[in-house]
Structures are given as structure tokens and as C-alpha cells.
């Protein structure tokens, strides 16, 4: 629907923000529109004559523009197309640029004709708490009927389905003073603080500093407020110690003055985006002192059908005229309970916008502003309120209001007068923006003078100034700001380098406000009359009253029952009004009711800025071994191990993954394979007490290990549960090299350091991680030695000279190497380490040398099958943090000689020593081709339906190409005593697999293959 264009002629209103020489084209719901540089979507759409900008969330009522900035709750739009589409933006904050595409929300199929409006007709069936009441029964309806209905009807806007092509980033900054809000109080604070020479940051959510300075009355230092702000901010830019952020919303305040601020870097300027700037930037600010100068928000008044398009906040109407030369309509009325409404009336009148009535709730209107209005010829009606709204065009346009003498209560109004108008500017008083103050525990107190909550106490180095502090007159705003800035600088222990002149303010005083939480309606209350409190969530006064009647008396209960204040605007305009209604309904004073908790963020900010650079290939830090590029070239598939990417298997042309895994395994068993094991943790441990330390951290003995020999060790935590394992080598008398699992590498270094620093402080040992210094490969298989023999080496590889479980240092093919004769596959195997810079070179040399033996690289899956065939455990597969060495049948590795080692005492605790614990066993499925799923549950008795008593679970399960059958390991209650018994594994879909309990060692129990 479009009406008459509302752009005022330049002679009537200049429009301080717009440049009429620069026209901009954009589209709203597909309709081509034009605006000017400096316009917001809200001002441009309104100027085009369009009133309806959105539909409400629950009732789908047509809604128009209502607010001034980030508090806007009706005009929510989606901006952008495809991957760039962002929903739920406030049209009042979206700056216009050429080609902008905006779409309205909560409507289907179109804004003007919306099917969901039927909810409005049935609204009697959608009272407060309807979510809880309506959809509870019958249960079977939930999935098929209710949920699709809710999903279809609810939801705010629609997120993009494509990848967001833009970049985002985060920035850390440390400042001495952070000033939140660039209105006159904030500017005064920054001005005073900057004089100290300390670092000051000023953040404001608007594109232009000044807050409402440009639409307010009063002078500072002989300048208009806007000029004073401009002069001061120009100084900041030059000072070198003040950083100003505009279009930046401070969204949260956290412990130790940690502050998050979301900057919209490019949203107003697609060219900047195209040049590679991040679309949004999230600032992580650490401030010595925070000064909150976040201002105040005008609040609506609850009168019947106060949500109709054309009814807006008085300050918003004023700003539309003064900033954008856009009239909210042709003929309006002002509805106020305080003096500020008169300023709007006068400004509109000056701009030639007809104001046919100023309706003031107060019987005794203070002189001053009201006199000025009367002098200008405006019709002021005292002691009255709006009792109803007349609409045309299906509620999309107001045509008049009904005015009646104001008497508090819920009764029916009879004596009404009808006044024609096409807009209403409502001034219900101001609420300090206390959100940030409250995020980290700031306390509030109710102030009867302003009929609102204002900041009280706070434990953090944070202060609040100006209208955010409930001080609404200009003089106090500026003085508080200035004093706040000076005090902050002084608190940081600096004498101001130069002292700033205290700003001098000239402004007219204002009279008192009269609270009005509810204006009685014509007609029966709540039938066809809705007094909206929370516009965004469609919560009415009647809903809040119902909540009280139904016993949801605590304000926190009322909030959740009615969803008051739970929309994306976080109750910015509804909180106090809601409390006023509850106060009326319960007879309790507002401070006795209390407020709900204010939580970050103040306004929504994009997921992009939360993710920052973490997208695409930078989503997570990825660790690569020196052989990564080779694996990639061979077409490896990947297995993430911690942050590492390890080659899982190397499928060749025409091979499935399983084919590749089987081929790799058989290569190791029959010929020779090469594994990149570089990710294994490696730690050098040295010092006179190194052996003592190892005896304390391992379950088995390492002080007896001979130099040049290797031993497999088990590590427990202090609770007696397995946490890591690996082979440790004695390099010298006082020098060891420990291997850990790939995932445990960092933790084990920290673990050793912790015990050395905090418990065994007298032990003389140094530990240092060397994981990344070495590339390490396992060459395994019957031909391993044959391949190595082809390469030049000063190491004698013969079985006599180089025994199993020993270690040599030397060169191989010209590379410096450490060679360990250890085996995790059960085959003849050497693990060869070379400095990482040589890793790729040595790898290539080994692959080359092994070509005639049919060498094959093998990945982590083949590695796992190979070890499972041998019954070797993997920490994290066979163990889950509740498994002891005894449970996995490794009691042989638990020393009985050592007096103390980590976890020893706990193994004797009753629970761990009890009978019937789950124990590691092997499983052979009755059908050898049937591979059990990982994690499958073993049950005592199979029943037709759960519950069944669970007696264990599968920890590893594979198809063994070596044995040509399925093998598995499992933890089964008392398993070591159940050899040969059959257990059942009921699977999803009713199938049950049976398996015979066996030894977990499926191949070469004597260990002949590795010891050749």
C-alpha cells in the first residue's frame, strides 16, 4: 500500500542527515523506491508514503514504524540477497545505499495480504501462555499438526540458505577509559577523560555522534548541541589518544571490565565491502574504567490498539522531520504525559506538519513548554487520554483517535470525542538504558520522579552518566558526563595533562511526569481492543493480567509465561510498561515487583562477527605433518586426531575405502608398509631424577630400563584410570625420550610439569616437548629390513645387533635418524625419526627404496585394524576414563614393587577392586562376515523390547582381511572369566548379532612375527 509522499519541502524542513542532491534507488518487497544519501530504510520507505513495514509476530497485525533506532520493534526487515541476506534488522538503523534490497517479515504471501492475520481474529484463543496450553494435547498431534503450524507461522525473518561470502573479524583493544554512547553526556565524558592523555575509546551505535543532540533543545558553550558535539569529536580525531567507533553497538559488559562491541563496518557501504573490508568487526575491549552514557529510550503508552500504523514515538516523529525531512503524516495528534511531547509538537508545527491536538494526561499541565505550544496556536487538551483508534484499509492506516477524560482504571469510556488524524506521536516518558549497567551485576533503584529504574550500585569500575543515569535535563547530562570523565582519569592515577574547560549549558527546565500505564478504552476491554505492551512479541496488558490471575506472580514467571521482553529487542520499550501493568493488577508498587534480568547482547549481532575469521579453511586450526602434501597428492582421506589431519587411507583408482584399507593391511602383513606416525607425542626428559619421575608417572618400572632400550608404559590418573600409553626409550643414564598418544601429547607435557612443580618439587628433572621436531615413520612388514638395507646407514640393522625393543641413532640415506625397533602392528617394524625438515625427503627415499618390495603407505584405519588383530589397546577406544589397567588385562604392567606411583592407591579403593567390573575381551561373531557396530551393547537376555540388562559394549570392531573374518574388542562384565561364552548384541531394527567371547589377541599370540 502506498499513500501520499511524505517528504517535506526543503523550505519547511532541511533534513540534517540527508543530501537531496544524491538520489538513491532501492527496493522494498520488490517495489522500486528512491531515497536520499543519509536516509535510513525507515525514513525512505515512510517518505514514499508507505506505512506498513512489517507484521507482528503472533497476530500478524500490520505494523508501521514506531521507534528511533535500535529499540525499533515493528519495522524489522531482511536486507540483502542470497548468501548476504540478513534478517531482523531494524529499518531505523539500516542506512540506505544504491541497490539495497529490503524485505518485510512475518507475512505470507505479502505484507498487504497476510494469511496469518487470521490469528488476530482468533486471538481470543491465543492468550498469554498459549504456547503452553494449546499445543499440549493430544500428544500425537505435536509432530504432525502443531509443530509444522508453529514453525510456519512463527519465526522472525528468514536466514540465508547460502554461504555468506563476506569476511568478518575480531579485534582486541586495551583502553584506559571506554565511553559507551556518543550523546552529549558521552562526549562530555570523553572530552574530560582525554585530557589526561590516557587512552579513551568512544563507541556509539549510530553513524553520527550526538545521540539526540540534534533534535533536543538547549545550548552548550553557546553552540547548538549538534555543533558542540561536532567540534568536540573533531578534536578527538586529532588527539591521538581517543579512538571513536561509530556504527558500533556495545553489546555486553562482563567480568573485569571486559566489553564486547559489534561494529558494522560495511553495512552502509557495499564498495568498502568489495574492497575487502570485513563486513562486521567484533571488538573485545578491556577497559580500565567504563563510562556508560547509553542514553534513554522513550516509552509507549498502553492505549487501545496502540500498535496501528501511524502511531509512533514522539521522539521518532521529531527525528523523522528534523533529520530526514520526512513527515509521519499529514495531520497528527500528540499524546503525552510529560513536557517532551510539546517539543515534538512545536518542531512538527514549525516544519508545517499539522498537529491538531496535544493530548496531555496531566490535569495540571506545567507552564513553560505548554505555554509555548499554546502561543504557537496548538490546541492543548489537559487531563485526557486516547481511548481508541479508528482505522481504515483493514487496520493498515489510522483515520482518527477517540479522546476521553483520563481516569485511571479498566472501565468502559463513554464520553469520547473523535478527532481525525493520520498519525499519533506518543510520549510516555523516558527509560534510562540500563542494560549494560546490569549485565555484570549492577543494581537498580526505582525513581518516582522519572517513574523508571535508574542505576544504583555496581561492584566494577564502571560509572553511568546522563540520561542513562536517569538525569534527563541537559545541564545535568553534560555535568555528569564531564565529571565522570575527569573522575575516571583521576582514578587511573593520572593528573590531567591539560585541564578541559567545563562546558556551560543553557537549557529550559521541564515539569514533572505523570505515570500512565494504561489508558481505558471505549468499548469492552479486551474485545477488539488490544493494549500492546511488548509489540514485538505481541504481549498485551490483558495477557499480563491473565498471568497474574493464573498465579504467575513473580516477574520472572510472568515474563516466561507471556514472553514479555523475550523478543530480539530484549524488552527495551516494554519492560517498565509491563511492570506498570503488573503493578496495577497486583496493587504492588513497581520497586516491590522488581525487574527481570538484563542479559547480553543489548541488540542482536551477527553470527559472522562471533565467528570472526573462523570460517572455511580457518574454521579450526589444522595441524599438518611434514608429509601432508604427499598424502594429499595420493588422494588420502582424512581422519581428524585432535587438530591433526592424519591420512585415514589411500584409495587408488576404482578402490572403495574398505578395499584400500584391506590392501594396506595385507601389504604390511605380507610385504611392507609405511606409516606417517609423526603426530605421536615426544617428550625429552632429563635430569638426575628423571628415572624417579618416570617410576612415579608410569604404572610400570622405568628406572631398571637399560640405556638404548625401549619399554611400553601405561599411565593412570590419580583416580586409577588409564589416561595414556606409549613407548619410552632411555637415551642416557639421566635422559629419556617418552612417546605419548597423538591426542595426549600436550596434556602429558603439562601433566609432568604439574607434578614436578607442585608435588615433587625436589626432583631435579627437565621435560621439554619435541613432538614437532621429528617426523616419525613406521616401516612395518616382513620386508621392512630388506628395504632399509638398501639405504646407506651407519646402523647395523641385523637382528643380532639391533634387537626388538631397542634404539639406535645414526644416519639413513644421508638423513640423521633415531631408529626404534618397536611394533604396533605385530610385524617386524622400525620406527624412524628424522628432523621434520628432512621428513619429506626421507619419506620419499623410503617409498623409493621399497618400490620393488611392493611397499604401500598405510593410513590410520589400517593401523587400527593391525593393532586390533594383535589385541593392542588404543587409549580412547578401549578406555573411556573409567577403565583401569586391570580391566584391560594389563595387570602385568602394574608394578607391585614400587611404593608409589600415580593412581596406585586408588586401584585398591573398594570400587575399583570389586568383582564384576567390565573387562576387555575379544569377540568372534558367529557369522564371520558380520561386523559389529562400534559401541554396540551386549545384553544379558535379549527381549522383544527394552529395557534389557546391559553387560558391556563393543570398543573396537573391524573386518580383518588377514583373518578373513570380523573381529572385535569389548568391555564385558567379568569378561575374562567368560571365555567361550556367547553374548548377544541387539541392534537397531530388531536384528541381534551373536558373538563368542575370546582372547583379544587374534593373531600371533606368541609375538613371533615382530621378533625376527
Amino acid at each position, binding site marked *: 500500500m502506498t499513500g501520499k509522499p511524505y517528504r517535506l519541502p526543503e523550505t519547511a524542513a532541511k533534513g540534517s542527515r540527508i543530501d537531496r542532491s544524491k538520489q538513491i534507488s532501492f527496493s522494498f518487497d520488490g517495489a522500486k523506491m528512491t531515497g536520499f544519501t543519509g536516509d535510513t530504510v525507515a525514513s525512505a520507505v515512510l517518505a514514499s508514503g508507505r506505512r506498513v513495514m512489517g507484521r507482528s509476530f503472533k497476530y500478524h497485525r500490520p505494523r508501521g514504524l514506531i521507534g528511533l533506532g535500535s529499540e525499533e520493534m515493528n519495522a524489522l526487515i531482511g536486507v540483502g540477497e542470497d548468501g548476504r541476506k540478513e534478517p531482523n534488522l531494524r529499518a531505523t538503523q539500516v542506512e540506505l545505499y544504491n541497490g539495497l534490497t529490503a524485505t518485510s517479515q512475518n507475512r505470507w504471501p505479502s505484507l498487504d495480504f497476510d494469511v496469518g492475520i487470521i490469528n488476530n481474529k482468533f486471538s481470543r484463543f491465543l492468550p498469554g501462555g498459549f504456547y503452553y496450553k494449546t499445543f499440549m494435547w493430544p500428544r500425537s498431534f505435536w509432530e504432525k499438526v502443531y509443530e509444522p503450524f508453529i514453525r510456519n507461522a512463527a519465526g522472525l525473518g528468514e536466514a540465508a540458505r547460502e554461504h555468506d561470502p563476506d569476511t568478518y573479524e575480531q579485534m582486541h583493544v586495551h583502553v584506559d577509559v571506554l565511553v559507551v554512547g556518543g550523546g552529549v553526556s558521552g562526549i562530555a565524558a570523553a572530552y574530560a577523560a582525554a585530557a589526561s592523555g590516557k587512552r579513551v575509546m568512544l563507541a556509539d551505535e549510530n553513524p553520527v555522534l550526538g545521540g539526540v543532540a540534534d533534535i533536543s533543545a538547549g545550548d552548550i558553550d553557546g553552540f547548538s548541541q549538534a555543533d558542540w558535539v561536532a567540534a568536540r569529536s573533531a578534536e578527538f580525531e586529532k588527539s591521538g589518544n581517543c579512538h571513536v567507533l561509530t556504527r558500533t553497538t556495545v553489546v555486553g559488559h562482563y567480568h573485569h571490565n571486559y566489553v564486547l562491541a559489534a561494529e558494522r563496518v560495511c553495512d552502509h557501504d557495499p564498495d568498502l565491502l568489495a574492497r575487502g573490508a570485513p563486513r562486521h568487526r567484533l571488538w573485545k575491549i578491556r577497559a580500565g574504567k567504563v563510562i556508560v552514557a547509553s542514553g534513554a529510550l522513550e516509552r509507549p503508552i498502553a492505549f487501545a490498539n496502540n500498535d496501528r500504523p501511524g502511531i509512533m514515538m514522539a521522539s521518532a516523529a521529531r527525528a523523522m522531520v528534523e533529520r530526514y525531512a520526512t513527515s509521519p503524516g499529514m495531520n497528527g495528534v500528540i499524546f503525552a504525559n510529560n513536557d517532551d511531547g510539546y517539543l515534538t509538537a512545536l518542531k512538527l508545527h514549525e516544519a508545517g506538519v499539522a498537529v491538531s491536538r496535544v493530548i496531555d494526561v496531566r490535569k495540571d499541565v506545567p507552564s513553560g513548554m505548554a505555554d509555548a505550544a499554546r502561543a504557537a496556536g496548538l490546541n492543548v487538551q489537559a487531563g485526557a487520554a486516547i481511548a481508541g483508534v479508528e482505522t481504515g484499509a483493514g487496520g493498515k492506516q489510522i483515520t482518527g483517535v477517540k479522546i476521553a477524560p483520563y481516569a485511571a482504571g479498566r472501565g468502559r469510556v463513554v464520553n469520547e470525542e473523535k478527532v481525525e488524524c493520520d498519525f499519533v506521536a506518543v510520549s510516555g516518558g523516558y527509560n534510562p538504558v540500563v542494560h549494560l549497567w546490569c549485565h555484570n551485576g549492577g543494581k537498580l533503584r526505582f525513581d518516582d520522579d522519572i517513574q523508571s529504574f535508574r542505576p544504583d550500585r555496581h561492584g566494577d569500575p564502571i560509572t553511568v552518566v546522563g540520561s542513562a543515569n536517569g538525569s534527563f535535563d541537559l545541564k545535568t547530562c553534560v555535568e555528569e558526563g564531564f565529571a565522570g570523565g575527569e573522575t575516571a582519569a583521576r582514578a587511573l592515577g593520572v593528573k590531567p595533562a591539560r585541564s578541559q574547560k567545563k562546558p556551560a549549558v543553557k537549557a529550559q527546565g521541564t515539569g514533572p511526569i505523570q505515570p500512565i500505564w494504561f489508558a481505558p478504552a471505549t468499548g469492552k476491554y479486551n474485545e477488539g481492543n488490544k493494549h500492546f505492551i511488548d509489540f514485538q512479541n505481541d504481549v498485551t496488558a490483558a495477557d499480563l493480567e491473565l498471568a497474574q490471575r493464573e498465579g504467575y506472580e513473580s516477574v520472572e514467571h510472568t515474563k516466561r509465561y507471556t514472553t514479555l521482553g523475550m523478543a530480539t529487542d530484549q524488552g527495551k520499550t516494554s519492560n517498565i510498561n509491563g511492570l506498570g501493568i503488573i503493578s496495577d493488577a497486583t496493587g504492588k508498587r513497581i520497586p516491590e515487583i522488581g525487574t527481570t534480568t538484563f542479559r547480553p547482547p543489548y541488540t542482536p549481532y551477527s553470527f559472522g562477527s562471533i565467528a570472526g575469521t573462523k570460517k572455511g579453511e580457518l574454521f579450526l586450526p589444522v595441524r599438518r605433518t611434514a608429509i601432508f602434501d604427499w598424502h594429499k597428492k595420493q588422494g588420502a582421506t582424512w581422519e581428524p586426531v585432535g587438530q591433526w589431519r592424519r591420512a585415514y587411507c589411500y584409495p587408488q583408482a576404482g578402490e572403495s575405502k574398505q578395499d584400500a584399507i584391506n590392501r594396506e593391511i595385507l601389504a604390511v602383513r605380507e610385504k611392507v608398509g609405511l606409516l606417517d606416525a609423526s603426530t605421536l607425542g615426544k617428550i625429552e626428559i632429563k635430569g638426575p631424577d628423571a628415572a624417579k619421575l618416570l617410576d612415579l608417572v608410569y604404572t610400570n618400572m622405568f628406572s631398571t630400563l637399560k640405556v638404548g632400550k625401549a619399554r611400553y608404559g601405561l599411565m593412570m590418573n590419580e583416580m586409577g584410570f588409564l589416561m595414556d600409553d606409549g613407548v619410552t626409550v632411555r637415551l642416557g643414564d639421566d635422559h629419556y625420550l617418552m612417546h605419548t598418544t597423538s591426542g595426549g601429547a600436550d596434556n602429558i607435557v603439562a601433566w609432568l610439569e604439574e607434578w614436578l612443580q607442585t*608435588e615433587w618439587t625436589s626432583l631435579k628433572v627437565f621435560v621439554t616437548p619435541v613432538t614437532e621436531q621429528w617426523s616419525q615413520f613406521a616401516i612395518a612388514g616382513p620386508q621392512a629390513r630388506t628395504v632399509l638395507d638398501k639405504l646407506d646407514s651407519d646402523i647395523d640393522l641385523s637382528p643380532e645387533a639391533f634387537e626388538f625393543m631397542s634404539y639406535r641413532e645414526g644416519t639413513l640415506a644421508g638423513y640423521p635418524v633415531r631408529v626404534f625397533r618397536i611394533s604396533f602392528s605385530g610385524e617386524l617394524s622400525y620406527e624412524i625419526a628424522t628432523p621434520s625438515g628432512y621428513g619429506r625427503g626421507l619419506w620419499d627415499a623410503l617409498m623409493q627404496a621399497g618400490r620393488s618390495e611392493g611397499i604401500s603407505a598405510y593410513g590410520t584405519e589400517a593401523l587400527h585394524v593391525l593393532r586390533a588383530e594383535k589385541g593392542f589397546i588404543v587409549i580412547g577406544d578401549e578406555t573411556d576414563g573409567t577403565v583401569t589397567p586391570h580391566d584391560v588385562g594389563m595387570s602385568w604392567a602394574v608394578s607391585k614393587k614400587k611404593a608409589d606411583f600415580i593412581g596406585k592407591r586408588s586401584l585398591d579403593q573398594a570400587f575399583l577392586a570389586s568383582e564384576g567390573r567390565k573387562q576387555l575381551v575379544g569377540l568372534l561373531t558367529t557369522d564371520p562376515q558380520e561386523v559389529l557396530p562400534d559401541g554396540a551393547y551386549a545384553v544379558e537376555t535379549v527381549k522383544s523390547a527394552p529395557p534389557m540388562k546391559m553387560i558391556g559394549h563393543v570398543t573396537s570392531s573391524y573386518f580383518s582381511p588377514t583373518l578373513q573374518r570380523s573381529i572385535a574388542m569389548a568391555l564385558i562384565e567379568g569378561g575374562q572369566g567368560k571365555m567361550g561364552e556367547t553374548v548377544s548384541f541387539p541392534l537397531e531394527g530388531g536384528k541381534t548379532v551373536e558373538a563368542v567371547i575370546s582372547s583379544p589377541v587374534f593373531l600371533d599370540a606368541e609375538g613371533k612375527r615382530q621378533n625376527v
Partner: protein
Amino acid sequence: MLIIQCPVCGAEGDETDFHCGGQAHIARPATSDPDNIADGDQRDYLFMRFNPKGLHFERWRCDRGCGKWFHAARDTVSLEFKAYYGITELPPADVMKQATGQWADFFKQATAGRPAAKKAAKKTPARKTAPAKAKKS
């Protein structure tokens, strides 16, 4: 996000640059007498912790700095750090004095046991808190 300062190297940084090691001053029974530990004492050592509202004593590590462990006295309500001190030390006397409840009892025993540390150790293991030599920083 807390700000923490390492007393060993002086580095100040975000909480994420540090690692919290939980409650301070818990003695490990096995270090002094591995053969005589009652089940209950081992259970207490592993699992029983103070949970004070107010002043608390914790172990932290300068994870992204010097790598050293240290002690901190932190108010769990205001989140203010009242003191940082060595990993083998008891809190500064003035801070120890502010401790309440279980901590007050603990420090009373720990300091009373000082001249005859071995005796006190049996019942209230606090050896780690009152070591012979303090670590220099």
C-alpha cells in the same frame, strides 16, 4: 573473562592465557606415607572440595607465559584476586586472616602445625602448603 597476573613472570593476561588447577593446598597422602592411607582419606583427597562464597584459594598455571604454577586467593563473589603467591607457599598472612569457614579452619591447623609439621600432617595433610624452601621467582 578474568584478568590474571602471574607472580612468577609478571605477565598479565586474560583468563584464557592461564589454566585453573582447582582448589589449592590439597596434600597428596601417598607422597608422605603410601602404605597407610584409609579409603576415606583417599576419597577426600580425590573428590572433596571446598565451595566457599567469598575468599577462595586456587592453583593456576601461567599457561601461555612462563608455564609455572602459582597460587591465587580469589573472591568468588566479587571475582577480585586478593593475592598471588608461590605454588609451595601459604597465602600472605593478611589474606589468610580474611579466610572464613572451612578455609579459616584449614589455615588455623596449617599454621599451628608449622613448628611441628609432621604431627599436624597426619590429620590435616598440609605439607605441600608449608614446605621447607620457597620457590624464588
